């Protein structure tokens, strides 16, 4: 019963979020601000994680393929496909759910408990739309770039690991990452990223928007936002994979 009540509240919130804005120009400015806050500020963590995971995938694949029957360039292919299909979209999505999701839930939750949301409402502003709509749009627009960056950096991290550890030659790795390349994998990853961006921003904002109480509840709502965003990302991953790759 509680699930249906929460889901109903979420849908009502989304209806308010996507209703006509009071002043489009102000919302566009907010979108640019959110791209900086949610997107540009996440580039660093995406690069660091991608480079290391790319390197680790390459090394682990190498150490698990000891057979001389298997050509070494397949390590490059494996690293590429793992990064393109799952890591850069889903794993980065989960990391962003933690970073961006908690940021959104705590920011909006703090505004709720300090009556800033009530102040917006009292001015005649649709607070849900003003606060949440720019975040959703900014993340849906910018997160695909984060995914593309993650793909490039992850594959580069694999190459660095290959040549610095001597696990395989640069030529083998580069041949591997070009071998049997399916461009649709990039489309698939980007579609997933856009869906994840919507989930992360809307679910976290929902938990922040309806927080009641004090600082402790803001912390709890932030945790809830991250946990439910992560679960929904995994569920969406399953559904989209079945729809797009099966």
């Amino acid at each position, binding site marked *: 019963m509680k699930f249906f009540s929460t889901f109903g509240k979420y849908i009502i919130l989304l209806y308010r979020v996507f209703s006509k804005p009071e002043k489009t120009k102000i919302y566009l400015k907010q979108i640019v601000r959110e791209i900086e806050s949610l997107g540009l500020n996440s580039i660093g963590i995406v690069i660091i994680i991608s480079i290391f995971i790319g390197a680790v995938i390459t090394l682990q694949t190498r150490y698990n393929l000891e057979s001389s029957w298997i050509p070494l360039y397949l390590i490059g292919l494996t690293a590429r496909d793992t990064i393109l299909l799952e890591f850069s979209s889903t794993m980065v999505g989960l990391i962003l759910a933690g970073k961006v999701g908690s940021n959104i839930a705590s920011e909006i939750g*703090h505004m709720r408990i300090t*009556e800033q949301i009530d102040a917006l409402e*009292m*001015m005649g502003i649709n607070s849900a739309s003003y606060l949440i709509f720019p975040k959703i749009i900014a993340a849906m627009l910018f997160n695909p770039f984060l995914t593309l960056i993650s793909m490039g950096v992850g594959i580069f991290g694999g190459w660095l690991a290959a040549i610095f550890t001597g696990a395989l030659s640069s030529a083998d790795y580069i041949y591997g990452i070009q071998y049997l390349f399916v461009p649709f994998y990039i489309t698939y990853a980007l579609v997933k990223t856009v869906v994840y961006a919507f989930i992360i921003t809307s679910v976290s904002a929902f938990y922040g928007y309806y927080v009641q109480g004090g600082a402790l509840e803001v912390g709890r709502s932030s945790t809830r936002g991250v946990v439910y965003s992560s679960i929904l990302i995994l569920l969406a991953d399953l559904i989209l994979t079945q729809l797009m790759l099966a």
Partner: protein
Amino acid sequence: MIRVETITKAFGNSTVLQDISVEFEKGKTNLIIGRSGSGKTVLMKCIVGLHEVDSGAIYFNDRNFVTMNFRERQELRREMGMLFQGSALFDSLSVEENVMFPLNMFTQMTLAEKRERTNFCLNRVSLDNVNRLYPGELSGGMKKRVAIARAIVQNPKYLFCDEPNSGLDPKTALVIDDLISEITHEFNITTVINTHDMNSVMEIGEKVVFIHEGLKGWEGTREEILDTNDENLNDFVFASNFAKKIKALTSEGK
């Protein structure tokens, strides 16, 4: 004028307001007083629509707020200003941006015009040279003044103040009270103040409504409070020994 007609509000099984009817007059400072937990904040939040009433009607010059849809309420709220207990200034915006915020959202004024109006309102609340400061850099009293400036920047017809003196020292509280009273008369606003500060009541309470355990306990002027026989109101007003002594002296004609 605001007319509240038999409103009732419950949270779950707990009835917080029961059949409250009251009129708040234009150009006057109308005070809602009562003990903590008596329902006065809920009453104010019901009037402005931050809580939905279970039954009854709330008229703003014959427009029933309760039956309005979301868009109609948004329109009406643009005629209201509200001063929140914690000021509710936007942390990420400077003082100037806070006061200018409603103008950015709802007017087609040029930046110069908006600056002029913002500076006028900040001057009106006796704040100069604070435009570039952020809320975190202001004292409690200054925050309240900025919040008042933001509340009046769009020339509201109705001004609501929730515990405007909370957290302020007595002297600053008096300054804020006087400011609200002056603004009310200067701009002919219907002002509703929610307080349990008896100094405010005696200073600026032109009309006073006493809420006791969710019911309207008493209604009158600040002068009438001293002579009332209402037991609950007397308990509330003369709760401190200091107030009791004042009452004793007053009744003795000293």
